[in-house]
């Protein structure tokens, strides 16, 4: 069943479905084996769930474990389903909803960071302005000639969005973003 259609007024308790879609970040620890990413992505497309952002890399080489970070949206009911459906996948070790975990730990939100490479081309005032703003955003220049810069910027999604928006009129050429990397604050692991 399509998840989006599921959250209508089908109440089993007398009250109506009042849940609203929320954006959550899931950490999924998987065996790094062929097809594992396809299984995860196929689950989302097959069951009509959203993927807002996806990041994956092997994180524990000796155990061949990869950590997939997925930003998704849905009502709490749908998010719970997503977690359980992910846990059914055989090479999936653990699934943690970082937002739920943060709430359990009495924290506000999980830490979320993204890295972007932003190429801006131009000369004259625009070029100077781009460099000045990049400095204000603590973006690093990692490549440049007289006609362009490539900035490397790291931070929250909102900061990167803002930086990109500002660079648009200053000669934005292309953007590459890593997607969100995330974990909870505190000493505990996932």
């Amino acid at each position: 069943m399509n998840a989006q259609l599921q959250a209508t007024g089908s109440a089993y308790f007398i009250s109506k479905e009042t849940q609203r879609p929320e954006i959550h970040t899931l950490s999924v620890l998987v065996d790094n084996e062929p097809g594992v990413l396809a299984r995860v992505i196929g689950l989302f497309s097959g069951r009509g769930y959203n993927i807002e952002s996806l990041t994956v890399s092997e994180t524990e080489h000796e155990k061949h474990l990869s950590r997939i970070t997925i930003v998704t949206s849905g009502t709490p009911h749908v998010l719970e389903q997503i977690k359980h459906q992910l846990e059914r996948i055989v090479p999936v070790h653990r699934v943690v909803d970082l937002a739920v975990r943060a709430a359990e730990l009495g924290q506000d939100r999980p830490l979320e960071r993204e890295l972007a490479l932003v190429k801006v081309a131009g000369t004259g005032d625009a070029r100077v302005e781009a460099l000045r703003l990049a400095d204000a955003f603590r973006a690093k220049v990692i490549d440049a000639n007289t006609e362009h810069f490539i900035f490397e910027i790291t931070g929250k999604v909102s900061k990167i969005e803002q930086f990109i928006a500002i660079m648009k009129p200053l000669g934005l050429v292309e953007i590459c973003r890593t997607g969100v990397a995330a974990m909870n604050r505190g000493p505990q692991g996932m």
Partner: protein
Amino acid sequence: MSNGQNETGRREMTGAEMVVQALKDNGVKHLFGYPGGAVLPIYDEIFQQDDVEHILVRHEQGAGHAAEGYARSTGKAGVMLVTSGPGATNAVTPLQDALMDSIPLVCITGQVPTTLIGSDAFQECDTVGITRPCTKHNWLVKDVNELAKTLHEAFHVATTGRPGPVVVDIPKDVQFARGIYTPPQTAPRTSYHPQVQGDLDRIKEAVALLANAKRPIIYSGGGVINSGLEASQLLRELVELSGFPITSTLMGLGAYPASGKNWLGMLGMHGTYEANMAMHDCDVMLCIGARFDDRITGRLDAFSPGSKKIHIDIDPSSINKNVRVDIPIIGDVAHVLEDLVRLWRATVKADKKALYPWWEQIAKWRARDSLAFKTNDEVIMPQYAIERLYELTKHRDPYITTEVGQHQMWAAQHFHFEKPHHWMTSGGLGTMGYGLPAALGVQIAHPDALVIDIAGDASIQMCIQEMSAAVQFDAPIKIFILNNQYMGMVRQWQQLLHGNRLSHSYTEAMPDFVKLAEAYGAHGIRCDKPADLDDAINEMISVKKPVIFDCRVATLANCFPMIPSGKAHNEMLLPDEATDEAVANAIDAKGRELV
């Protein structure tokens, strides 16, 4: 297993030999398959041994359904072997069927050599890609030294937790390559560990809730069957101890005997009035190994509005998926029921008198006699045919398979099941063509049993080719066709939803089923008079070879009672109220969009 030296079972062999050895080591006695270029090395090994018997089907879909029937009737994994490309794509339907009905099915597919993968080679397809969403898990084995481990893991994954289908795709060069075979080991993988034992605190809560229920109901499903004979036994004990009424899904029939005094009949879209009304009006619902499928719940926002719900399931994703429950218990049905029954015995003083008003209410619903039908001296009513089939075969403890459609629902309503593992039907996917190959699989597993496929005239033609396999392997299956010349369920829905415009639901050119049987070397019987039916059925049972029974039934009979789409359990359409007008107006515009 340790990797030390001197272990038994570790030896060098080819990949193809490993396949056969792994089948033996996993207790496989029969497999269903169809050869082709990419599995020839495995077939060559099968040829050179006698421990595992290969059943040659006529189409890979037949192999899958036969393996499903075999699995469902034995509780063991069904095994199929097919070639690459079309062999694998033809297996997709039974794989999805097994996924939806939680049937342990191990499918071994041949693949083009690893060096050709990705080159669009002859009979190449991306088997693991195609079957990823329709299996519990699948593997492409590129290294012969991984093959034995993978095959054992495949059996483990298919048969444990919530059972399901798996695919092991083996390139042809891996079948020829030599490597080290390792015997099966326990717990082969760390990420997969289904929870079997239920949370005891939750079970205690459930017992307390059940003990104080005034209008309880037990709603059991296919999970009870999958959990094994012990689960059915415990379910029966629980019903006996508690005095609760019990209903079941299509997949769960037989877990509690239909002759049991607490039996309400099947629930859901074509379930009995008393079962659905009791579900709607209950105060405590105990769902055991069922998944609140849309065919069960009807309109979700009016589903059993006043009840507290307890849900026992081995799959955490089944909990709170369609219906919110108050006490979820994750675990294997037999394990949870064992605790639950033990706690009930220890803590509950059953006051069955407290349930009298509830049983009185149920008796009133039952008195509506929702499965009633008018018999006719001239034409055989399909319900009557099933009734007679039941009466004349029940002493033989028959295994029943079905295709999909009206005949399937009539079989579920009018054939009464006393034991688990005796009812094989395609519930979740609703696969026409399931019944005949499934019957073949059941007969292979139980050579002396009476195995009957209750079929429709349309469904039977979808896998009719397996008659040839049945004849070859002396499998005396009985194909009992309720022949009404229509795709009856399609027509019923066209009457309900589409102004009685019967678009392509009438089969204008029907084969002569008797001649068809004879063409295959089977036995054909035709019957169109109620008075002749008993003799004809007795003839069918006594013939020692496969039989196609062309039972000509009333062409326009429809399947009632019915919860029309978009309606709730207490809005059933009963047979005596199902006038043409009621049928035409049963479903409103919103319900029309549903399936």
